[in-house]
């Protein structure tokens, strides 16, 4: 079986073709870098995504946050729920951890700017 993918690693958006036999990858083509090849592999076995959203600051307002590494794609909405429960200190600095090891994925949710502007 052949799977056509659009690589999301960078804005180039290479068109990838993965040839599969059952779950086994026979060949990958169309990528222009190593990261593209890795993407094709995980995308066909266990797709992963970074989640970016905002978290509430205690006392009002929101601060942007992200998972500091990719998490399984099917956990995106669960991850949103965890982040929506969190409350961030108004003194939080860029990179502070908001949720540790979210859903046991090994990824931390961290702020992407200082809470105070």
């Amino acid at each position, binding site marked *: 079986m052949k799977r056509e993918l*659009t*690589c999301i690693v960078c804005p180039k958006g290479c068109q990838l073709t993965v040839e599969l036999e059952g779950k086994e990858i026979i060949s990958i083509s169309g990528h222009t870098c190593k990261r593209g090849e890795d993407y094709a592999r995980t995308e066909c076995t266990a797709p992963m995504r970074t989640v*970016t*959203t*905002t978290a509430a600051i205690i006392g009002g307002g*929101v601060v*942007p946050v992200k998972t500091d590494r990719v998490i399984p794609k099917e956990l*995106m909405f669960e991850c*949103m729920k965890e982040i929506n429960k969190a409350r961030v200190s108004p003194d939080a600095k860029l990179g502070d951890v908001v949720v540790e090891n979210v859903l046991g994925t090994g990824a931390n949710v961290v702020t*992407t700017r200082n809470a105070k502007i």
Partner: protein
Amino acid sequence: MKSVDLVIVGGGPAGMSAAVAAYDAGIKDILILERDKSLGGILRQCIHNGFGLHRFKEELTGPEYAYRYEIQVKERNIPFKTETMVLDISEDKVVTAMNSTDGMFQIKAKAIILAMGCRERPKGALNIAGTRPAGIFTAGTAQKFVNMDGYMPGKKVVILGSGDIGLIMARRMTLEGAEVKAVCELMPYSGGLARNIEQCLNDFGIPLMLSHTVVEIHGKERVEGVTIAKVDDRRRPIPETKQYIECDTLLLSCGLLPENELTRAAGISIDRITSGAVVDENRQTDIEGVFACGNVLHVHDLVDYVSEESDIAGKAAARYIKGENAAALPCTVELETDGRVRYTVPQRIVGKEDVTVYFRVADVFRDIKITVRDGERVIISKKKQKVAPGEMETVKITKDMLASLEGNKLTFSIE
């Protein structure tokens, strides 16, 4: 009147990069004027990741990317004024600005860098029939509501236009619990990046309806639904294909437009296609000592390129102030396009060094050659599998090519 070596209008990524580059090239007397509350520009609301892969070799979110530059500005103690609006720039480089502490003030600058960015095209809503209830926003306004103010503008959403901001907002609102019913695109292709169609629409099963448009908006106080229809190859709606979609929000993502009121008022020539100033490879406009970079010059989809371009402008402004590239050099080479290549930046080359030329194409073309000609002579022919209007292309004109030119025109075409 107070005088400053270099005034930079706009404190987004373009203004900050240009300031840092000029400072590092020896110009310390700089002032950045920014109308918003803080430095950072539009990136402050672009909380998704994907920025900086070129520049920092890592994937950053918009606020993180902006912060890297904010730190560089602050480390160098480059002066800036926020909540300060530039009102006018004159041909002899007097900048008029206003804020609540200084009131209205004027500064005489040796050089000016224009870095005002762009705003969203409000069109798209204008010629849709029906009512004008609450619930219609540009995608960028919705982005600001959700990401900066923490406020969701609606629950059931239709997006008109498939520019990147629209695609990003489709995912953003879905993650926040809204139902995005469709993204309609008038053209037979999307103006957004392929990766965004994949990760913002396909990941969530949001349909991208190409060659479709919104023909009517329904609702009295609040949007209750829209009627969409397929369009024919002359972009006219086909009545038999009309369908009603219930929604409470319509987002418009119909592209960006450089914000060039100040540029026009100063009498600087504007390129009809880019809606930005006409510049040479130093990003100098046709007023000597006035430079432009970033989205005010032409719409970039990648902030990495914005920084690259702003570096060039910052360094060139520094050379100009130090008298190193004395008066505007005589224009040597004009860059022309065949229409399939829509525009180039720069539009002319005045020097003798290597120049990277950025350009966009007018349509999706497959298995083509990007060709650059000096008269009849082909000097560059670059094979490409696919080019699309949504993705900026580059070619490099080397100094050897420039040295051996026979004419004073280079023509860019797709063949």
